[in-house]
């Protein structure tokens, strides 16, 4: 779905084109054919524009700015977010008690219902914004920007784990296992954090390394099994998530992981030397883990776009057969990418135990591992896209808590909005159809095109 690919096929003089629909259908076919190797492979998780490295800064500057904006991925992304927020708002309004009360006399005074609906949805979203970006009711500057730092704090594990998922996607692997990798990473990091007593600096370094190693172990295991036996990574990662949950659950029943004299499934506090220092003092929870996440993003960007390892991984992901023929070991690629994906998720585990939680519990990963998948998908598996998506979802999460406390709107709505965003972004033609945008590369789109796209309707064959 590379909207910015200049020209396809041999250049031919553009005659009058009588059949836009055919042209469009063919263009779509060609696009998908490029993506799927003429139907021999499933469509990738990564748009082809992202599969090629960024070795060509000149690419994409050939078309007028306005047209690029109108047909670009950025606009689709923005509209997808808007659409999802609207859908979420409707859901909030529909389930609101005042709206329900007002709707009982809807036909007498419809404005009451609509007003209540509006205030329910806007109230919830205002609280969401207030809790994630800027608290306009705060009396000090610190209170005002506190939500933003909360967003960054929550975004930290999302970004780290999202990068792991994205990296695996780029090598053609569906890493559903970030959850397990976070847990094992957190488990290793926490143990080094509370069981070892070392000088400041060294201790934190070892905690980070332990977390990275733990995540890498759990991820690498998947890569190894996939490479050696051909087992499907989706199944392996899902199963290892459960194994990780029960493993940490078991360890928390053993004295080695429990607080002295307690049988609660909760570990001792990590040593102060094992914690990420606060970034802006004790008034904010934001810690140095965020800086680590930024560094991780830079690293993944470099890895994918400027390193030989990234070249290999991208080749393995885009066309494993060609990669093999070019002397790139596909099996090694699987192991390497899953090691790194696990390591990044492990970093998210470190952010949890050394940054925010400071103890190990069986719920240490919350649902960050699953959210990381949507973060990576939303970020189209590019490092900075994932970073931005991590910030957005971090804002949803941080703001969702405020929303739930202030307006009583359940935080689950965040999941709905998040998943809708990813769904819509994955299907640009749908967004274009809803907002009647021009097709990429075409001045005007034809309604007739719809009829030619496959399977417009269901029904028995």
């Amino acid at each position, binding site marked *: 779905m590379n909207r910015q690919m200049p020209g396809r096929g041999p250049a031919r003089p553009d005659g009058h084109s009588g059949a836009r629909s055919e042209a469009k259908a063919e263009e779509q*076919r060609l696009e998908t054919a490029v993506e799927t190797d003429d*139907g021999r492979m499933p469509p990738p998780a990564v748009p082809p524009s992202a599969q090629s490295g960024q070795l060509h800064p000149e690419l994409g500057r050939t078309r007028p700015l306005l047209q690029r904006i109108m047909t670009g991925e950025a606009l689709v992304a923005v509209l997808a977010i808007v659409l999802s927020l609207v859908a979420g708002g409707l859901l909030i309004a529909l389930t609101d008690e005042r709206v329900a009360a007002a709707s009982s006399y809807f036909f007498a005074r419809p404005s009451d219902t609509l007003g209540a609906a509006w205030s329910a949805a806007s109230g919830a979203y205002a609280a969401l914004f207030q809790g994630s970006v800027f608290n306009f009711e705060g009396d000090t500057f610190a209170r005002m920007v506190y939500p933003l730092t909360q967003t960054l704090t929550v975004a930290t594990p999302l970004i780290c784990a999202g990068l792991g998922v994205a990296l695996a996607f780029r090598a053609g692997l569906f890493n559903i296992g970030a959850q397990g990798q976070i847990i094992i990473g957190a488990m290793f990091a926490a143990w080094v954090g509370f069981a070892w007593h070392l000088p400041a600096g060294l201790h934190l370094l070892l905690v980070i390394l332990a977390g990275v190693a733990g995540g890498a172990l759990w991820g690498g295991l998947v890569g190894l*099994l996939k490479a050696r036996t051909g*087992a499907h990574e989706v*199944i392996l990662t*899902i199963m290892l998530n459960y194994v990780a949950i029960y493993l940490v659950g078991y360890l928390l029943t053993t004295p080695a992981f429990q607080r002295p004299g307690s049988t609660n499934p909760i570990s001792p506090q990590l040593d102060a030397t094992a914690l990420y220092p606060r970034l802006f003092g004790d008034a904010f929870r934001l810690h140095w883990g965020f800086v680590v996440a930024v560094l991780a993003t830079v690293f993944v960007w470099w890895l994918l776009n400027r390193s030989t390892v990234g070249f290999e991984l991208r080749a393995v992901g885009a066309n494993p057969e060609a990669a093999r023929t070019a002397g790139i070991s596909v099996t090694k690629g699987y192991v390497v990418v899953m090691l790194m994906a696990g390591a990044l998720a492990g970093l998210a585990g470190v952010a949890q135990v050394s940054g925010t939680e400071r103890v190990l519990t069986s719920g240490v990963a919350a649902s960050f591992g699953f959210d990381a998948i949507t973060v990576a998908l939303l970020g189209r598996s590019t490092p900075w896209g994932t970073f931005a998506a991590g910030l957005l979802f971090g804002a949803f999460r941080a703001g969702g808590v405020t929303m739930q406390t202030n307006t009583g709107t359940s935080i689950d709505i965040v999941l709905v909005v998040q998943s809708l965003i990813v*769904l819509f972004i994955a299907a640009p033609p749908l967004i274009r159809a809803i907002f009647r945008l021009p097709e990429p590369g075409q001045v005007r789109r034809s309604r007739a095109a719809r009829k030619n796209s*496959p*399977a417009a309707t269901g029904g*028995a064959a």
Partner: protein
Amino acid sequence: MSTMTAKAAETAGAAGAVRSWKTPVILAVLAVLALVVFALGAPVNAATFRLSDPSDAVVLPDLVLSAPVVGWVSAVLLLAAAALSVQAVRAGRQVPGWLLAVFAVFFVAGFLTWVVGSARTPNVALYGLLAGSVTLAVPLIFGSLSGVLCERSGVVNIAIEGQLLFGAFAAAVAGSLARNAFVGLLAAALAGVLVSLVLAVFSIKYIVNQVIVGVVLNVLVSGLTGFLFSTVLSADAATWNSPPRLPVLPVPFLAEIPVIGPILFRQTVVGYLMYVAVAVIYVGLFYTKWGLRTRAVGEHPKAADTLGVKVNRMRFSNVLLAGVVAGIGGAFFTLVSVSSFGRDMTAGQGYIALAALIFGRWNPVGAFFAALLFGFATNLQYVLSFLGTPVPNQFLAMLPYLVTIFAVAGLVGRTRAPAASGIPYIKG
């Protein structure tokens, strides 16, 4: 089915066949494990297996097994089976399926005797263990049948979890509002179809990667049901979240047969529907026009298209049908198992169903037995934690997942999925 025999014969006949040592190695490791744990580590106790409830019409005597005897016998037999598999591979043959089956039976027998014998109360109701396994397997079976329908026609269905969960939710809500469990059942089927519809539209019409759609759909359903649960359902549980249960309908006389009677003939509508669904989908897939077309569309859609089969329409309708199946499976949670909806109550069963589908080699009957295996492992965990065993509870809970990893990595490995599964069909 003839595929496999033909392939096996061909492989067996070929000179200098490529030898795969994976299976023998795994069998050998397991056999040694059995020797160390079941035989050398056998408890002195006897393990008692009760075959029927004292209140049953026909009462069978208890089965009392000496743990050391069974441990040694099974260990020796397992070692022998492993040796046979080594010999088979050395001779350039594949390890025969019956050997694997025998191995599995003795391993399970040895394990059961050891674990029950080591328990604080070395006495277990075998009939309950089995019946419970089937009960736990019901949603898994529906889920994997949903997967069979989708994947056989070329659409990967990761959204089984979402279909089950939405089915459970719809069954609870509709059942509560209508005060009728059967309305709930119907609503569950519709809810499954709704999830399927989104899957079909996005993966077939908009050609979005099917795994992505599936994963995201699961999140969407989880969020949506969670949101409605915490707002609507919790606010007024009596109205929204107290569905009546589906009645158990025992078949007279047959239900009294020891051990298998309750499994086959003392079920709710959902339970009976499960057996029907397995049979109907199996026969339909392999012996009807619809099945031939479905499989063709999943293997070589272009060939089907050139013969006038409407590929995407076929896929679309099969995905919707899969929604019906999985939706009914979801109803099990709220109409049979417990009679209220809970947040994320399917707890990953959809993913296990996916594993059962692969373990069962994309065959309805295979998926049925694979799901039973998972049901058995899960139920064993419950029963054993009740009996008080030396194995920590968490490890027992891991069992189904570890079995799955072993299954997909070791014994199944590179099985042949429908060739076009996951690949969209674009005409031209």
